[in-house]
């Protein structure tokens, strides 16, 4: 894992000292809210419905056990004993007091963390495949490059006041777990003639205008990455619209200029600046790569795992859903579900964080990851240790065997917390999970991604959910729109709107009808909801959602 250098430490210390003074001046009355607001946002501090919210960056979703323990300490000391992992691989604290935030930032700085650029029109936290460095299907670990991008973009003077926020995602695997086509820049590691490089995707994004990114360069040599990203940002900074915030993202620039024009401008700018890059970035990258050297995997028998599988059906069910193939023999990637039926997706208590940190330290080479699906990952666990890991997770309510199933729902905070929300998301997620658990259908339904946003900004990624739910306000009440057929993988697709919205108390029954239609129409248990939707089209699902209309038509 990356360790802060003296430079990083000094930079964070200075920024935190500046913010401490800014908070003091706000409280003393020397700064107005108009003056203070941009300063607090630069440090991740929002004001929400009930309280302040501090958004802390977890770069490319990677945490050490010491960092996770510090998050637990912060949750307990300065918040209400929990934290919320987000779809941007960040953590949010929902209840900090203004006067405590400087101390919280110092506590974060002590473990190499910060909240810089988690808000504002700048390059945000660079996200990555949450299985990076562990997945069997990976070309290379994308995190050294993600860290290079983080260092380059942090406090970059040219890119602090972009037309709008800017999100970069990176994957080292052809199986895209980082939703690269829904980011301003998506980077996919590829190889050509034995040389490593990137496919560069530009102009993806969800929100009110959901668009999938387009390939602007199908092969970019690895050493050209930073100058090329700089060229993209430079063109966006010049041509991105500043007259209308709803048209300010690079996806709109792409569609207004067209792919060919945008590409030509990027390539021209790249040609102009390439020579200025004389290799210092590659020297830094080489140093960063040493920090990400793979752990010393051990070669040991897996008998304990085999025995536990045979003896304990609860362990077996968990192993079947929550483990993924690791690149090292005898190892597994463990996904810890934060989605116990009825729990708030992405929330973890301080105690749960400490248990996960202890497990990472004892069994997981000291590493944890946060996924954009709001779960926590132990990326490197030897299979012989899995029974002990499972038992420890079970003791704190973290052993739910539902990863990739209908109750593994993404949900934004929605109107329970967020000042921008138009409807609630969390209780809808809770009720869907509880309903399908009560029906006992979860395993039967199989692979399913439900994603819920509480407003059009789409933090809950509803457009790329197999079933997407968007909470809006209609005629003074909450109304939920359903989209179908979305996909966040390498076969990315934006879901199609099914029809009119459903009231709060109608949305769970509507989902139930949708699932009943799928179970009745699927070719067999191996055909997932998404596959069935692609084969059958929207019609049978719309008919299930809106039975009255069908009755009228007949």
């Amino acid at each position, binding site marked *: 894992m990356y360790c802060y250098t003296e430079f990083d430490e000094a930079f964070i210390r200075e920024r935190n000292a500046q913010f401490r003074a800014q908070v003091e001046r*706000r*409280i003393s*009355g020397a700064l*107005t*809210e108009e003056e203070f607001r941009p300063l607090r946002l630069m440090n991740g501090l929002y*004001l*929400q*419905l*009930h*309280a*302040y919210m501090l958004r802390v960056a977890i770069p490319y979703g990677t945490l050490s056990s010491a960092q996770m323990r510090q998050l637990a300490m912060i949750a307990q000391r300065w918040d*209400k004993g929990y934290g919320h992992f987000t779809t941007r691989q960040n953590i949010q604290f*929902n*209840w*900090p*007091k*203004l*006067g405590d935030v400087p101390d919280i930032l110092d506590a974060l700085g002590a473990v190499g963390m910060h909240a810089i650029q988690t808000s504002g029109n700048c390059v945000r936290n660079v996200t990555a495949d949450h299985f990076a460095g562990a997945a069997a299907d990976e070309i290379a670990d994308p995190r050294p490059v993600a860290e290079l991008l983080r260092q380059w973009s942090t406090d970059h003077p040219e890119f602090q006041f972009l037309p709008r926020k800017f999100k970069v995602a990176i994957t080292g695997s052809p199986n895209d777990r980082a939703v690269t086509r829904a980011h301003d820049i998506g980077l996919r590691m590829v190889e050509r003639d034995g040389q490593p490089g990137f496919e560069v995707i530009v102009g993806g994004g969800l929100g009110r205008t959901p668009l999938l990114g387009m390939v602007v360069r199908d092969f970019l040599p690895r050493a050209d990455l930073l100058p090329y990203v700089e060229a993209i940002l430079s063109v966006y900074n010049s041509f991105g619209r500043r007259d209308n915030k709803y048209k300010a993202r690079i996806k709109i620039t792409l569609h207004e200029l067209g792919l060919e024009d945008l590409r030509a401008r990027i390539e021209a700018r790249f040609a102009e600046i390439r020579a200025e890059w004389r290799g210092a970035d590659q020297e830094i990258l080489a140093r960063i790569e040493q920090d990400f050297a793979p752990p010393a995997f051990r070669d040991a028998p897996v008998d304990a795992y085999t025995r536990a599988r045979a003896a304990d059906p609860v362990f077996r069910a968990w192993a079947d859903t929550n483990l993924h193939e690791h690149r090292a023999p005898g190892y597994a990637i463990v996904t810890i579900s934060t989605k116990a039926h009825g729990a*708030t997706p992405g*929330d973890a208590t301080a105690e749960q964080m400490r248990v996960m940190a202890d497990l990472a330290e004892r069994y997981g080479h000291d590493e944890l990851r946060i996924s954009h699906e709001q779960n926590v990952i132990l990326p490197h666990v030897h299979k012989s240790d899995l029974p002990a890991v499972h038992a420890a997770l079970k003791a704190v309510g973290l052993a739910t065997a539902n990863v990739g199933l209908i109750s593994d729902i993404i949900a934004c905070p929605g*109107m*329970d*917390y967020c000042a921008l929300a138009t409807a*609630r998301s*969390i*209780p809808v997620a*809770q009720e869907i999970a509880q309903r399908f658990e009560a029906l006992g259908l979860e395993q039967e339904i199989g692979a399913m991604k439900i994603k819920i946003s509480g407003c059009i900004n789409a933090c809950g990624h509803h457009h790329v959910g197999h079933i997407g739910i968007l909470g809006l*306000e209609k005629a*003074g*009440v*909450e109304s939920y729109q359903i989209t179908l057929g979305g996909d966040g993988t390498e076969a990315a697709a934006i879901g199609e709107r099914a029809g009119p919205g459903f009231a709060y108390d109608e949305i769970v029954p509507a989902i139930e009808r949708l699932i009943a239609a799928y179970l009745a129409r699927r070719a067999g248990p191996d055909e997932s909801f998404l596959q069935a939707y692609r084969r059958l089209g929207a019609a049978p699902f719309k008919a299930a959602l809106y039975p009255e209309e069908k009755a009228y038509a007949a």
Partner: protein
Amino acid sequence: MSRRFTPSVVTANALLSGEAVWLSADNQWTGNPREAALFTDAAQAEERLAWAQGQAHTIVGPYLAAAKPGADGPEPTHFREAFRRRGPSNYAHGKQEALCRG
């Protein structure tokens, strides 16, 4: 043509805690929405809002929120304001916590 005025309370977030607060009839900021003053006169509501905007040392982001008279003080007419005065639905935090403590 300007929109018709609806009776309103003046609400904001407290500067230090960030919690939702309301303006009472005696010009105090209260965490209890039942103690909010309900303004039925547009000019008076605007005048109190303008006053609140000068309270930057205590509160953040004051605005007028539509409300109606109720048995126990003003009641919100929009669900967003109802959530603000209750707290989140997933935990008994926020105002609910204060009420539990009595």
